[in-house]
């Protein structure tokens, strides 16, 4: 067991933190969100310059050959600054799909474009009726000569409104809830028949509803093996959970720090409110939960590349529950201890609260994963 960062990781951490300290103050972020696309192209280019967009990809594709721990560090920093660029969607979700399922030609074409910041991906798997069930896919792909025709709709596709290319899951066989019969397709966003309605999420990040109506694709659009994508879908989702869990830890840490500052400086009844023991104990409970969440985010990061699927799935579910529950506790209490100011759009603590809320409701909330784990007890 080794919790020390390597020298490279320390340098990476420093440069990301410095960039965000310079360019991602809360007011700057507000400006990025208010822009037409809802995030900063300039920051995106900075991430590319720093090598963040190539972090998890092999060097032969222009990447840096990093692993889940590197992603964890970057995501924690992103969480502290509430970064709104499409990193999770492009690098973690879309990038993992290409990395795990792509053939040489696909990797050779797509990964370098992710690395240099010129291509953004969207992970178009979830559907409105599915809630959190990964197998609940109604979108269909039917054979059309040598190619395919997609029909259906995808829901809450993170940064789906700005993605240049969508990774779309569709049924090529099996019934609604079957693991078998799922296939992934690479769909350029400008393909005829793809319609997108973008919107802001509760935390200010962007997403889209995507409808697919007679979307014609060539045979080269298939990503991975026809009918056998479930394992990939699971791995991509788990990589997403691990990364978002780290981001949540960063958000919780920052919300806790803000709360401590507030307890020290807000004066009522002639003294700082932090002199009240009931609030001190609450702040101590929050500290405990931040650290417990951090441990679980580390567990998730270490499990992303675990080859034993059952072991990986079980541990990532545990991390999802742990970080989800701690995250709720820390951010709900951050709002509570701030009082009225925590309820406002203009103050950061409410934004941390909502970012963590979105984490909790992505890819299965705590109750959902607890249910999966409970089925394995005994």
């Amino acid at each position: 067991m080794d919790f020390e960062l390597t020298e490279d990781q320390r340098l990476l951490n420093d440069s990301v933190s410095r960039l965000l300290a310079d360019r991602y103050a809360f007011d700057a972020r507000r400006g990025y969100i208010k822009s037409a696309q809802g995030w900063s192209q300039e920051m995106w280019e900075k991430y590319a310059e720093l090598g963040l967009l190539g972090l998890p990809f092999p060097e032969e594709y222009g990447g840096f050959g990093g692993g889940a721990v590197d992603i964890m560090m970057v995501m924690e920093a992103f969480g502290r600054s509430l970064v709104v660029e499409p990193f999770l969607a492009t690098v973690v979700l879309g990038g993992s799909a290409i990395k795990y399922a792509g053939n040489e030609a696909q990797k050779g074409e797509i990964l370098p474009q992710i690395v240099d910041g010129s291509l953004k991906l969207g992970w178009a798997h979830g559907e409105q009726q599915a809630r959190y069930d990964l197998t609940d896919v109604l979108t269909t792909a039917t054979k059309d000569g040598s190619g395919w025709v997609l029909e259906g709709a995808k829901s809450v596709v993170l940064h789906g409104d700005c993605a240049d290319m969508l990774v779309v899951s569709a049924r090529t066989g099996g019934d609604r809830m079957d693991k078998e019969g799922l296939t992934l397709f690479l769909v350029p966003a400008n393909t005829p028949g793809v319609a997108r309605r973008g919107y802001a999420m509760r935390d200010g990040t962007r997403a889209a509803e995507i409808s697919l109506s007679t979307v014609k694709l060539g045979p080269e659009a298939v990503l991975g093996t026809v009918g056998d994508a479930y394992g990939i879908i699971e791995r991509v989702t788990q990589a997403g959970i691990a990364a978002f869990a780290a981001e949540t830890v960063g958000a919780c840490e920052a919300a806790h720090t803000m709360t401590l500052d507030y307890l020290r400086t807000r004066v009522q009844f002639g003294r700082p409110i932090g002199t009240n023991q009931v609030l001190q104990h609450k702040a101590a409970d929050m500290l405990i939960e931040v650290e417990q969440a951090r441990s679980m985010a580390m567990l998730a990061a270490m499990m992303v590349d675990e080859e034993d699927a059952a072991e990986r799935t079980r541990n990532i579910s545990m991390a999802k529950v742990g970080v989800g529950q701690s995250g709720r506790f820390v951010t709900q209490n951050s709002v509570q201890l701030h009082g009225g100011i925590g309820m406002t759009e203009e103050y950061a603590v409410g934004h941390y609260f909502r970012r963590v809320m979105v984490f909790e409701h992505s890819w299965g909330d705590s109750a959902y994963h607890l249910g999966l784990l409970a089925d394995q007890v005994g």
Partner: protein
Amino acid sequence: MELRFTEEEIAFRQEVRAFIRGNLPAKTLERMRLGYPPTKSDVVTWQRILNKKGWATYKWPQEYGGQAWSPTMRMIFQDENMLAHAPEVNSFNITMIGPVLIQFGTPEQKERFIAPTANLDIWWCQGFSEPGSGSDLASLKTSAVLDGDHYVVNGQKIWTSTAHHADWIFALVRTNPQARKPQEGISFLLIDMKTPGITVRPIISIDGSHHFNEVFFDDVRVPVTQRVYEENKGWDVAKFLLGNERTGIARLGKSMARLEDIRELSPHLRNHGAPLLDDKLQRERVASLEIRAKALEITQLRVVAKMMQQSDGKPDPFSSLLKIKGGELGQDTSELIMDAVGPLAMPQWAKELDLLNRESGENEPPIGPDYAGFAAGPYLMHRASSIAGGTTEIQKNILNKAVLRL
């Protein structure tokens, strides 16, 4: 002791239910059912309908238009309104300033304000909190200096709910900065929001809605005749107002309505390949919330019964208990609905489609299912339930001082 409803009470429940069903405007019902906040006109229209029937002011003394209802009937009325997704009457009018004017108002003030307050011809808001005076309300600094037959008011209020809708504000102001105790230098003023020198600035909440405001007073001249009760005795008025029958504060009916809603939603919400409530974990969550609601229902009845017996007008410290437990139940039932809807509760659908706070819902067609549009909004707004009107921490201090005396 009898915890079951009598036949008269059951008949009363049916009468209330039928009246609401027959009179609540369809558009209001639809908005409220989907979890959207009521618009100003929803509230005004509904309060006037109730007032015509004599029901808007049921809590007031009978000679001022109140009803001779038992505690149980009061609770039935509140619950039925919330279960039927009717808007709440403007509580600043009905629960706060109305009873204050009845208790402390001059004959002229009563004549001028009581009828329009009941009918919501005047929309009131409350100017209590200030940036530096939240939990420590008595430290408030907004000053009122006597100048002939007027006070000149300067200062700032914050968290002023619906100030942007309001015609009048009732405000606590400092008239004696030299008082021995901060509580002893405060007066209670009624101020027309159209008076020159008043500025309202919106505060957007974390659910994206405009509910709170800052209100700035810059040399605002207020006739002395608009002071309620004696100069420097405003704290007594505020204490009466805050301790006045606050049973509605638990908003129990709203929580109970959500526990009904979850059953309706369940078939649409898939969980492990089946409807949500097929999952025992989910059913246990609903059941434990129902237990909490039941306990609170009975406690609330006990508190109302006790308060109706005593006539000294003193606040009952147990209203703190109702506020704490009712607020928690509101938070946890709204969290239940958000969690149930899950990923579809996360988009800010309403903001994107500009539906929020609009009088009519006709815009682009909604993107998600109708129940998803505002599934997270009440959860976000309910974080204020343990903050506004005295935080949970302050409520526990009140219980300690009044009951535990530790």
